């Protein structure tokens, strides 16, 4: 037979459905947020890592002058090298199904089935690519929408000639950035096809793994240095060496940073939920003090009574878990699928890791039980008399500040009552304020981050004072470039730049990765850089350079005034750093000097291999329309065009990435607003319930329904307003923290901070709305009770 005690629990839950729902939802919010975020964290990092390691990633990748199989074998013969493999990499252009062209980095090997290192896998079609067949990286599938396996696609070789290749299918290559973050697509052909495309049947990339200490980056660097020396002895120039973080996919830091931001929101939600649960559960128990007294009077021991209320909370917790655990699994799937899509890996884990279950149970059961124990223990410790006696109106006194603020002010009689009432249940008020304040501060912060994103975005736009950039595959006289460009009436101004790859020779004899060294006219108004130290270039500089923050991330020892050695085409050149600038969320390390200085170093004074074009009409539509015309113009003049970029394309991809993030954060903000509303509704409901008798007295002395409602509504509004002020103050540091975090996660540097005052104003509206809705319901209930009902209210 079911114990009477359990019957009591069930009846209590049933008889107060709204309250049960409120508590269950409060707990569920915390469980959901924590479950989703921690689970996503584990699933994403585990699956990304597993998928990455399954491809047998190379430990070092060399960018070399053309070489053959003999070099591959020779390197593999080295004692420290475990295996080595050659690949050809060439950038071509691919006609997409919407009639545009994208750059396509084409990789070629003899037989993809024999590939040992950094493997890609078949997604669709019959892997590997056969002669005149091309496979494309799967994240670019959208660009080939409507193209079926077996259809022809058009590829433009570096010499400008067009070839028809058969689309063989999609491949999955974890070693390339996805379409979500990259504007270069990836494709795969065999060496025969490469030759057919007019390229040499040679390799220019060498992939190696080391024999031992594969997780030791210093060891790998040392081995790579040996290999480099060996290659150079054999007369093969090394353009650059890339050593990925051992055992870690390149997007791992990005995922971790993003999850950190999410984790932050998760911890916030947990606190919110905890405060809400503490508030509601303690009020639930407080309402039962009289019943606790009666049960003690008829022989219930402390343990038996505690059992009943803990049992109630356990039921709350179990109901919440039953809602939130499956929802958190769905949330995990949505979140991890979305980010896995952005990074281009597959989430394969479908189960919930035990640690997540433990955490969910902790948030769903341990937190509410702990919250409930405080009032339960207080209740059981009271004497029966204290518990049962309930003489007339409660005697909890308002706060003295509230008294002082409202005393002796004519004309606010009923409002003074509302204001003082607010401060009677101080713990409950504090918890409600915490809930609403956290919700509000997060809401405003999220909007601030969104604003910071757009501010940063405007800065990006501000940096690019030109509309189209064309890279040439060769260098041309600037006068020729200018003449050709100016033939288009839409072109307003033209600037020729010289951009080359450069490798820093560090003082400790190691080499950096490859940076861009760009020569531009010192008086150029095509760029509007933001200086972080030193000065910008001037016309009489001879060997001055300005470096961007991405360069500084890689070379943290470099300061303004330092001399640095940059190897350009194998020759060491010496430069003095005169200034540093921010990177415009386009993470490439770049070193700027005057076109003339670089021209002198390279014997290319008056020449350029990049052209920046400003249009008469710089609108995105005009940019998109004119970019192909510009390219056409240069091609017609016999110039080899590498790629042409409309700045708006870059800006749009940037915007798209950030919009996805802000939509997610806005959803989170609204969720928090709703949770905050629960909190206030709960508090108001309980306040009114507890003071039903007092309300009866107010009505007995002549208060109308409207006046009763107004007192309760005013009380809610007072709480709403206080929470708004607190939230507003808290949202400043919080916004800064979040906006730095998001910036670091997405662009490697903090966003330009910009506080959303509009968001603050919006939250004021929300806080008031929440306050009115949350107190209207109990207010209406209270004004409906008759005086007799309220005075005998138990």
């Amino acid at each position, binding site marked *: 037979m079911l114990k009477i005690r359990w019957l*009591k629990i069930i009846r209590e839950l049933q008889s107060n459905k709204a309250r049960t729902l409120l508590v269950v939802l409060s707990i569920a919010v915390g469980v959901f947020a924590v479950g989703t975020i921690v689970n996503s964290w584990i699933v994403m990092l585990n699956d990304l890592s597993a998928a990455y390691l399954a491809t047998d990633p190379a430990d070092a990748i060399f960018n070399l002058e053309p070489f053959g199989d003999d070099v591959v074998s020779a390197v593999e013969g080295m004692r420290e090298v475990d295996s080595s493999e050659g690949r050809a990499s060439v950038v071509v252009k691919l006609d997409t199904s919407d009639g545009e062209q994208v750059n396509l980095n084409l990789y070629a090997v003899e037989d993809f089935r024999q590939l040992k290192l950094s493997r890609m896998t078949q997604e669709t079609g019959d892997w590997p690519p056969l002669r005149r067949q091309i496979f494309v990286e799967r994240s670019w599938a959208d660009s080939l929408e409507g193209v079926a396996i077996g259809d022809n696609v058009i590829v433009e070789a570096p010499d400008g000639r067009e070839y028809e290749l058969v689309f063989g299918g999609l491949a999955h290559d974890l070693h390339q950035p996805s379409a979500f973050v990259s504007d270069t697509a990836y494709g795969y052909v065999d060496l025969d096809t490469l030759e057919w495309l007019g390229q040499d049947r040679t390799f220019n990339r060498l992939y190696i793994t080391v024999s031992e200490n594969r997780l030791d980056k210093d060891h790998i660097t040392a081995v790579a240095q040996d290999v480099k020396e060996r290659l150079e002895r054999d007369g093969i120039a090394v353009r650059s060496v890339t050593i990925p973080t051992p055992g870690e996919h390149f997007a791992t830091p990005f995922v971790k940073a993003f999850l950190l931001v999410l984790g932050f929101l998760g911890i916030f939600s947990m606190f919110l939920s905890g405060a809400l649960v503490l508030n509601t559960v303690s009020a639930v128990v407080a309402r039962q003090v009289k019943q606790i007294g*009666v049960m003690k*009077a008829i022989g219930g021991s402390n343990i038996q009574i505690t059992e009943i209320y803990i049992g109630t909370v356990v039921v709350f917790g179990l109901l919440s878990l039953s809602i939130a655990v499956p929802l958190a699994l769905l949330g995990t799937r949505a979140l991890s699928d979305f980010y896995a899509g952005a990074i281009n890996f597959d989430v394969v884990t479908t189960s919930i890791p035990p640690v997540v279950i433990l955490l969910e149970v902790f948030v769903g059961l341990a937190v509410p039980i702990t919250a409930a124990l405080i009032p339960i223990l207080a209740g059981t410790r009271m004497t029966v008399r204290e518990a*049962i006696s309930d003489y007339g109106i409660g005697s909890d006194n308002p706060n003295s500040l509230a008294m002082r603020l409202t005393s002796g002010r004519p004309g606010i009689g009923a409002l003074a009552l509302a204001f003082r009432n607010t401060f009677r249940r101080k713990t409950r008020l504090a918890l409600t304020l915490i809930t609403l304040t956290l919700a509000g501060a997060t809401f405003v912060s999220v909007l601030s981050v969104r604003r910071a994103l757009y501010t940063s975005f405007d800065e990006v736009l501000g940096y690019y004072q030109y509309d189209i950039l064309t890279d040439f595959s060769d260098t041309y006289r600037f006068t020729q470039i200018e003449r050709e460009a100016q033939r288009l009436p839409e072109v307003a101004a033209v600037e020729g730049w010289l951009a080359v790859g450069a490798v820093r020779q560090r003082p400790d004899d190691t080499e950096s990765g490859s940076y861009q060294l760009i020569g531009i006219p010192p008086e150029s108004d095509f760029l509007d850089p933001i200086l972080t130290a030193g000065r910008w270039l001037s016309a009489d500089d001879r060997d001055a350079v300005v470096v961007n923050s991405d360069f500084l991330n890689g070379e943290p020892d470099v300061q303004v005034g330092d001399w640095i050695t940059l190897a350009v085409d194998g020759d060491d050149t010496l430069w003095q750093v005169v200034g540093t600038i921010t990177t415009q969320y386009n993470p490439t390390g770049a070193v700027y000097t005057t076109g003339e200085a670089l021209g002198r170093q390279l014997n290319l004074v008056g020449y350029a291999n990049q052209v920046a074009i400003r249009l008469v009409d710089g609108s995105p539509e005009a940019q998109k329309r004119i970019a192909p015309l510009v390219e056409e113009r240069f091609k017609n003049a016999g110039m080899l065009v590498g790629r042409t970029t409309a700045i708006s394309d870059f800006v749009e991809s940037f915007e798209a990435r950030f919009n996805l993030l802000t939509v997610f954060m806005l959803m989170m903000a609204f969720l928090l607003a709703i949770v905050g509303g629960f909190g206030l509704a709960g508090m108001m409901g309980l306040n009114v319930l507890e003071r039903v008798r007092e309300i009866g007295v107010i009505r007995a002395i002549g208060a109308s329904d409207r006046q009763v409602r107004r007192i309760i509504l005013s009380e809610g509004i007072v709480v709403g307003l206080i929470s708004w002020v607190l939230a507003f103050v808290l949202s400043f540091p919080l916004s800064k923290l979040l906006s730095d975090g998001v910036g670091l996660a997405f662009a490697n540097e903090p966003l330009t901070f910009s506080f959303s005052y509009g968001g603050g104003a919006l939250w004021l509206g929300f806080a008031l709305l929440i306050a009115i809705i949350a107190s209207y319901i109990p207010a209406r209930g209270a004004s409906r009770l008759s005086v007799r009902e309220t005075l005998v209210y*138990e």
Partner: protein
Amino acid sequence: MFWNNSKNGGGFTGKGIRTGSEYLIELNGITKQYETAAGPFTALHDIDLRIGAGEFVAIIGKSGSGKSTLLNMIAGIDRPTGGEVIVQGTPVHKLSEGQMAEWRGRNLGIIFQFFQLLPTLTVAENIMLPMEFAGLYAPKQRRARALELLELVDLVDQADKLPSALSGGQQQRVAIARALANDPPILVADEPTGNLDSKTADAIFDLFERLAAEGKTIVMVTHDIELAGRVGRAVTVVDGELVDEPVPVGLDMPAYIAPDYALAAR
């Protein structure tokens, strides 16, 4: 019929004749002070009271006299600031809240003015709950016992209703049945008829008389002098002290209690 008010210098206390253990309930020098915003307030002042097994005692007094406080001391509902409460040999004042509750469950049934039935439990369940708390009677017998008790208070047909569906008098009869659940030797009742009309109050009082006749020791707080006149013995509390004035009105007291008043008047 033994009582003592030390303020009166003894009287017929029987103190020297009977040992403490022979009384079912023994209060020695009970004082109760409450801390209030206006300073300490003495609700009970140095009270001695002895109640023997099977007595039906009424505690009478004006509102605020301390009569309920005195009852609370006996029931362990409240704790004395000083003095001893010994019930059936148990020093109740020394028990912790938890021990007190358990002791109460087996030894004492309480009836409140406002019934205090648990609103979410049915009538029968309300009566079964003390049995469950005390772990008395086999779980399967509890309902049968609850129904027996309901029969006693003539409410067997209401067993599965919630308290809110019952009238005040009915609720109080359920509360009495609940107090009897574990067959305790002592019943204490705080104004059990205070919230009822006089006809219903009469019926409830009849019930108490029956229980007293069956051997229960009953201590009841009331301000209804007329009812107080029907009990075995009445003690009067005035400003926290027991006084020996006879019940002022009333007066068709059964003859068997008259000697007490005579004693008290002396």
